[in-house]
């Protein structure tokens, strides 16, 4: 009887931790920095950070999908730079709206190409996207001759610097909408169920009549689309699209957010909310330590340690639920 009760308690704790563990860590970080740094908990700083989190947060949606199918994409930093310089260079010819739409379209197409290589040519995602990392970055250099594209179009700049009702940074709204759409795809549409099925057991999914290749192509295309949106936000923040400096180490930041958010690299299991909160944790941690005047090298050490800590706490969920070793 006692054993049953203890198991039930463990399961309840496991479920609680699974749902609220990461948000609790985020809240803890906010509380600690609010106490240690008087300028942290101002509405300006908090809103700015939510806005900046969209840089990683939006692409993390697409990466969550890709990782859920058991793949991953390390070309997204270079893709971010390439579509940024391409789209922004079109502005003088087709205007800001056209530039934005073409950026998203090109990024989706590049994601589609990645998907085709992985599925139809059977080249492992790591090799495909490693190759594309070089191809995309080099194309960005060739196209611009390594000269940044300066952006003055107000519509484009609004994506990074606009404020809704003069207060809320526009990237926050954009990120919320992206997550809502992604949530509907993943949890409320058959496509979402197919993604989970493909990631859990591709063979079984194929036997059930799911076109595994098409699902994989779709998730790579969706990742491209979200990278396109993130590229617009980022280049608008910077006021320029720089072929060499944009998106450096971006893939690692995004993959870190997704893994920290609880999506298993082995595929199948994934959490969009987790990826969002993880993106917030990474952004707020950097900002808080900066305000505390922590040496930048120690900031990297602290960020790495917090991530290991958060992931190990995630293991606690599986232990409590009796699903882990």
């Amino acid at each position, binding site marked *: 009887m006692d054993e049953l009760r203890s198991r039930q308690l463990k399961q309840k704790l496991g479920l609680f931790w699974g749902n609220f563990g990461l948000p609790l860590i985020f809240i803890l970080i906010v509380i600690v920095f609010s106490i240690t740094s008087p300028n942290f908990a101002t509405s300006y700083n908090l809103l700015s950070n939510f806005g900046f989190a969209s840089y990683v947060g939006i692409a993390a949606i697409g990466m969550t999908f890709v990782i859920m199918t058991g793949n991953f994409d390390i070309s997204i930093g270079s893709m971010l730079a390439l579509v940024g310089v391409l789209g922004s260079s079109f502005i003088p010819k087709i205007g800001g709206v056209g530039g934005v739409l073409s950026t998203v379209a090109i990024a989706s197409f590049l994601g589609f190409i990645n998907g085709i290589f992985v599925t139809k040519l059977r080249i492992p995602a790591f090799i495909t996207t490693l190759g594309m990392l070089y191809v995309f970055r080099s194309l960005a250099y060739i196209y611009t001759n390594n000269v940044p594209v300066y952006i003055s179009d*107000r519509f484009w700049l609004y994506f990074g610097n606009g404020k809704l009702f003069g207060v809320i940074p526009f990237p926050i709204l954009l990120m919320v909408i992206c997550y809502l759409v992604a949530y509907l795809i993943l949890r409320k549409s058959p496509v979402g169920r197919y993604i989970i099925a493909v990631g859990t057991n591709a063979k079984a999914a194929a036997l059930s009549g799911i076109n595994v290749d098409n699902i994989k192509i779709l998730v790579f295309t969706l990742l491209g689309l979200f990278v396109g949106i993130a590229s617009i936000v980022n280049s608008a923040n910077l006021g320029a699209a720089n072929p060499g400096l944009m998106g450096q180490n971006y893939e690692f930041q995004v993959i870190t957010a997704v893994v920290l958010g609880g999506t298993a690299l082995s595929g199948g299991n994934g959490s969009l909310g987790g990826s969002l909160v993880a993106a917030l944790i990474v952004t707020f941690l950097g900002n808080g330590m900066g305000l505390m005047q922590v040496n930048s090298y120690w900031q990297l050490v602290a960020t790495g340690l917090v991530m290991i800590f958060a992931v190990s706490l995630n293991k606690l969920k599986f232990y409590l639920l009796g699903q882990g070793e």
Partner: protein
Amino acid sequence: MQKRYLKIMLVTLVCTALILTLSFLGCKKEEAAGGASMQVKTYKDPSEITIGFSLWTMQFTFFQNVEKGVKDACKDFGFKYVMIDQNSDATKMVQDINALVGQKVSGIVITPVDPGAIGPAVENARKNGIPVVCADIGKSGPVNALLISDNFKGGQLAAEFLAGKLNDTSKPLGLGNLLPQWTYARQRGEGFLAKAMELGYNVAANIIVQNPSAEGGYDTMQQILSAVPDVAGVFFCSGREAVGAAQAIQASGKNILSVGYNGDPEEFQAMKDGILNATVLQQPYYIGYRSVEILKEILLDGKFYENVEVPVDVKLVTPENMDEIAAEILEKTGNSAFPTE
């Protein structure tokens, strides 16, 4: 079921487009109503002033000396001081500048990793009444002041030095140039080309160092040697590249004069080792110090600065005056001009 969710998604997308359009139009109206000039808050008590400094990276001695200049000036003027390292990341730089605005610092000094990417962040700071001074590298859009080495003069000094040593206009020269994006630093090459032409020399090879590093300098020097085998003197527009080029010259066994730019510790060492013939010294400590001095003039004295470019003098360092200049640097900055063990 599927149709229902498609409808929900469609409605969400339409709503997004609507909000985007409305809020964008609202923003345009706000801009049209707002003025372009900035309102700076002035102070009477220096202890109320906080200077925020956003620095490219602390990895290189040049930037360590800029930082020391900023820090010392803040100490001398009685200002509080906050520094954030960009870690060579343009996105982090923009976030850092925004964080400084959030902290309500009184003035900002920026040494940007990507001068093209500071526009919107600086605009935001200035909208909030915070004056911005760029300490070296460059800028995009309006700032209050930009302190920048007299790069054109530096290039001229390099050409004059080579011409003086060679004393034979029939000997061809080479130039290891910088990437096109470094608008201000590219003036080094322009100054060199203009002076060489004025003195009657032919710069037979003008090659961009694609990989800004010692290895990149080494590779570019080999390209110059292939293109112009009888090249007699070269100027490389940055320190590490110049040292790489000097090593390539040494490896080739040829007698070619080489001049660098910056006054990096590696260059001082290369001159001491007899493989580099000269370098053009910048004054990073002074750039940092003077940046804060300008902010002091704006914040305490109410002086007007808008898009002012302040050239900072450069000088030629050769093995003859190297020790004297190294002693000066040590006295001013506390850092050795030579690499530390």
